[in-house]
C-alpha cells in the first residue's frame, strides 16, 4: 500500500505537474492519485443514502415519517438521510499581481493555486457535486456558475489556464461581491496570498461564514516568502504596485520572518476560531500534502 502511495505522490510533485501542460490532466493526475490512495471523498453531499431511523418528535416534517415501518410497528419513525441536496462548491482564486510570483520553485503561486483549485473541482465533480469558479484581483474578474458533470471540469480548467495575474489585490471588496452573488449555501474554497489588510480579510471571511457557507482558505505563499533566503543588498520590487525598496536583506531577514510568522499565526488563530479552515500552502510542498491536509481537516469537521 505504502509503495503505491509513494509512487503516486511522486507524480504529484509540483515540478512534475509543472511539466504537464494541460491543467485538466494535472487535476486528474492529482485526484486520481489521491482516490487510488486511502482517502474517501471529503464532501458530505446530497446523496439519498439511508443513514438511520429515529423516533418521531413533534416538529419533524410528516413527509419524513416512514409509513411502512408505522404499518408494521404502529410507531412513528423518521428515516434520516446523510444529505438532502447536492453540494455547491466555489473555487475562489486570487489573481492579483503578487500571485504571479515564482521563486526558486517550479510553479508560481498562481499556478499552484490553479492546480489545487482544478484538483478539488475534479474531486467534487466526480462526486456529482456542482462546482463553480470565481477569480478576483482588484474586484471580481470572472465567475463560472456551479454545475455538475465531469465535462464541467474542462470549462473550469480552460478558465484557469487563461488567467493572467497583473492587478492589485482588493480581497475585502471581492469577498463582499462573492457573498452577495453566491446566495446558495455551499463550500467556498479561497486561494490567496492574503496580501491585503489582514483585519479586513478576517472580517469579510467571518461575514461569509455567517451566511452558513463552509469556508476553506488556502493561504498560498512561496517558499521565498516564508524563508526569505536573501543575504545581499537587494532592491525589492513590488509585483502589484511596482514600488521599490532597497535594503540589506540580511539585516532585514530576522524582522521579516518574525512578521510573516505573526501574520500566519494571526490568520490561523482568528479564522479557526470562526470555524474557517485555514491551510498554509507552501508552493514548494507537493500538492498532495496540501490536499491531504485538506482532507484531514474536512474529515475532522464531518466527525464533529
Amino acid at each position, binding site marked *: 500500500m505504502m509503495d503505491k502511495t509513494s509512487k503516486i505522490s511522486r507524480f504529484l510533485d509540483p515540478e512534475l505537474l509543472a511539466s504537464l501542460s494541460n491543467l485538466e490532466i494535472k487535476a486528474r493526475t492529482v485526484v486520481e492519485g489521491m482516490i487510488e490512495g486511502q482517502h474517501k471523498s471529503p464532501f458530505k453531499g446530497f446523496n439519498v443514502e439511508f443513514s438511520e431511523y429515529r423516533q418521531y418528535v413533534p416538529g419533524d416534517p410528516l413527509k419524513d415519517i416512514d409509513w411502512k415501518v408505522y404499518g408494521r410497528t404502529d410507531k412513528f419513525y423518521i428515516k434520516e438521510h446523510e444529505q438532502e441536496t447536492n453540494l455547491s462548491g466555489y473555487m475562489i482564486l486570487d489573481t492579483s499581481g503578487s500571485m504571479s510570483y515564482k521563486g526558486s520553485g517550479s510553479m508560481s503561486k498562481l499556478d499552484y493555486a490553479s492546480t489545487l483549485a482544478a484538483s478539488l473541482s475534479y474531486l467534487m465533480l466526480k462526486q456529482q457535486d456542482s462546482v463553480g469558479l470565481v477569480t478576483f484581483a482588484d474586484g471580481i474578474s470572472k465567475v463560472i456558475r456551479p454545475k455538475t458533470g465531469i465535462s464541467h471540469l474542462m470549462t473550469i480548467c480552460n478558465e484557469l489556464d487563461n488567467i493572467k495575474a497583473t492587478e492589485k489585490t482588493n480581497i475585502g471588496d471581492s469577498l463582499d461581491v462573492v457573498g452577495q452573488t453566491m446566495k446558495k449555501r455551499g463550500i467556498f474554497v479561497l486561494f490567496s496570498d492574503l*496580501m491585503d489588510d489582514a483585519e479586513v480579510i478576517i472580517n469579510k471571511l467571518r461575514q461569509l461564514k455567517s451566511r452558513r457557507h463552509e469556508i476553506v482558505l488556502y493561504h498560498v505563499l512561496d517558499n521565498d516568502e516564508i524563508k526569505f533566503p536573501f543575504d545581499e543588498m537587494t532592491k525589492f520590487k513590488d509585483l502589484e504596485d511596482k514600488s521599490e525598496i532597497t535594503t*540589506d536583506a540580511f539585516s532585514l531577514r530576522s524582522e521579516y520572518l518574525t512578521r510573516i510568522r505573526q501574520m500566519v499565526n494571526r490568520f490561523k488563530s482568528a479564522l479557526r476560531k470562526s470555524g474557517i479552515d485555514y491551510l498554509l500552502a507552501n508552493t514548494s510542498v507537493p500538492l498532495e500534502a496540501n490536499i491531504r491536509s485538506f482532507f484531514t481537516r474536512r474529515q475532522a469537521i464531518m466527525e464533529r
Partner: protein
Amino acid sequence: MNFANPWFLLGLLGITIPIWLHLYFKKTPVLKDFPSLRLIAKSVEYLSRQKKIRNILLMIIRICLIIIAVLALARPFVGQSAGVGVSSSAPTAFVILLDNSMSMGSTYQGVSVFNTAKARALDILEQMNPSDKATVGFINEPGGLVFPQLTWDKEALKQSINNAKLTSAGTDIASALLPALELLVPLNGYKKTIYVVTDMTESAWQPFVDRYDLNKIDKTIDLVIVPVGDTAPENMAVTGLETDASVIMLGRKIPLKIIVANYTNKKQTAKISISINGERRISAETEVEANSEKICALECAFSKTGMNHIEASIQNDAMNLDDQRHLAVRVFEPCKILLVKPENVGNTENTDDIFIKFALNPLNRSKENIFIVETRLTSEITNTEPSNYSAVILLNQRHIPENFIKKLSDYVLAGGNLITFLGDKVEPDWYNKHLSDDLGGGYLLPARIFKRVGNSVSKSVGYQLTDIDLGHPAFSIFSKDGNGDLSRAKIYEFFQVRPNPTAMLLCRMSHGLPGIIEEKRGRGRSMLITFTANNRWSDWPIKPTWLPFLHQAVISMVTANDLTINGARPGMPITATINATDSNNKVVLKKPDGTSENIDGLTLTKGLLHFTTRNTDLSGYYELIVGNNILSAFAVNPPPEESRLTRINLRKIPRFIPLKQEVGKGKSVREKVTILRDGYDLSGLAIWLLIILALIEGFIANKPILKRLSKN
C-alpha cells in the same frame, strides 16, 4: 625619528580591516521581484527605528568616549583634600601639630601613646616632597610652632619631632592651630593641610570646639586629625592638694585637703601618701566611687620654718604623671607682738590691752600658739627694740618717747608692722606733729587726726562699720556667709581723720567718716584704727568678729611681703617682684629634677627685682633662691582636666578629616596622607572605562557585520 618598540608598528596593518569591510559591503544592490513589499516595508521601518535608537546610543557612547579620553589625558584627581582643586601637581604646605600634653603620657596596649604620636608625625613627614614646605608645632599649654616659618628642611622637621618631649601641661589646641592658620592662609598655589596628632581628650577638644567656629576656617585648608591610642585607659589621679590654713606655724597641725579622682568604671582604692620635704609622713587608704572625685582630709605638721614641699601621691597606673601633686607652703615661727599700753593710773592697772591680748593669745601660752604677746607700758619701751617683733600695736598712747618713735619709723620702713588704736588719751596735734610731720618721709600714721566724734558716755549714737574692703586680707574672711557680721559692732566715739593720699581706706563709719586706714610704708605697713581697742568707745571687742579680725589683720601684715605663687601649671610663666637688695640681679630657680638655672631680673627702684621665667615644664616643687636664701618656692601641677582621658566623638569636631591607622588592617598613615594630598588618580580608571566603552561601541556598531560574518 626612532621607535623604542618598532614591532608595534605592525599594528598599522590593522587599517586594512576597515578598508576590507568597506569594500566588502560596497556592492550594487540585486534587483528582486517580490509579491508584496507590505511586510518588507514594515520591517524596514521598524529596523530604521531600531537603527535610530542604536545610532543615538552610539552617539552617546562616542561622546562619552571623547569626554573620557580628554579626562584621561587631563589626569583627573578626586579626593577629600580641599587643595586638590588647586592643581594636582601643586606642592603642599602643611603643619604638623603634635599633642605633647600630659594626657599623651598614657599607655595603650603597652605602648606609649606619645611615642605612637611621634611615629605618626614622622610618617606624615616621610611623605613630604622636595617642593613641599612644612613646620611643626605643639599643642600643649602654652603651645606654639617650633619653626615660626614654613621650611623645606625635612631633616630639621624630623629632628624636632624626635626631640619633642612629653610635658605635664594641659592641651591648648588654639595656641598652635591659630599660628598655623596664620602661616597657611596667605599662601597661594599650595595645597594646604594641618595635621593634628592627638589623643582627642574631650576635656581639651570640647572647649576648643565650643569656643571656635571651625566652619569659618579657610576652606582651602585641610584640617586633618590623626587620632592615636584607642579607648581611654583606666586612670586615677590626685587632682587637688591644698590647705585652708591662712598661716602655717611651726609644729602646728594643719588640715590638708587631697582630691583623688577615679576615672574608671569601678570603685577603686587609692593609697594616699603624704610626703613633706621628701620624707613620707602619712599614709592612708580611701575608696573612690567610679567616675567621681573624693576629697580626703588629713592633718600634718611641719618641723622646719620657711618654704616646705608637700607631695600627695597615689599608686601608679596607666598614666603616672598625674599620680602625685605638689604644694609649696611657708611655715612661720610664732609671731611676737608688742603691745604698748598707757601708764597705769595709781594702783589701777590699765586694761586697754586686755581685749587684744585675749584675742591674740587667750591662754597666754608661749607654745603651739600663733601669736606670742608681750605688753609694755609707755615708760618701758625706751629700750625696747621693735625689730624683735612681727608687729607693734600702740594702744591709746598720749605721748611716745622720741627715741622709740625713731626706732618705730625705721622698723616700719624696714618691713615692720604697726597698728595704732586711738582713744581718750590721744592728742591729735601731738600725733600729727610727732608721728607724721616731724618724721618727714618716715612718717608713721596713714592719716591726719582731727577731732573726736560721738559720745561714748551717753552712747546715744552707735555707728556701724560700712564700706568694708572685703578684698583686703584683714576682712576677706568675712566675705563668706556665716563668718560673722561686722555691722553688728557699734562704735560710739572715734576720731575724725583724713587719710593720706597713698593710704587705703579699709572701712568707714556709717555716716561716711573713715574708720580704719592702712598705708604701705617702705617695706612695712601701718594701720590706724580710729577708736579704742577696749569696750569704752566700741562694743566690737566683745563681738565674735573681733578675734578673727585681729588675727587676719596681723597675719595679713606679717605675710604681706611673702612671695606666694599659687596654681602654677606646667609651662606657665612665673612673674614676681621681690625685695632683693643683695640679689645682684640674679635669682636662681631650682627645678624639681634637681637642676638649677639663673634667671635674669630687672632691678626696679627701692631694691625691687622683677623677673619672669618660663622654665616650668616639669611638674613638682620649684625653689627661688637669692644669694643663699630660699626666697620663695612654688609648686607646678598638671591641670586636673588632663587626667580625664575620655575621648571626644570625632563627629563633634567639624571640618576635621579623621586619618586613622588601625593596626594590621587598612591603609597606613603614609598611604592615607598621599591619597589625601594627591587625591585618587582617575586616569587609570578613565583608560579602563575608555577601553570598555570602545569595546561596547565596537560591538554595537558592528553587530550586523559580526552576525553576517558568523553566518558565513
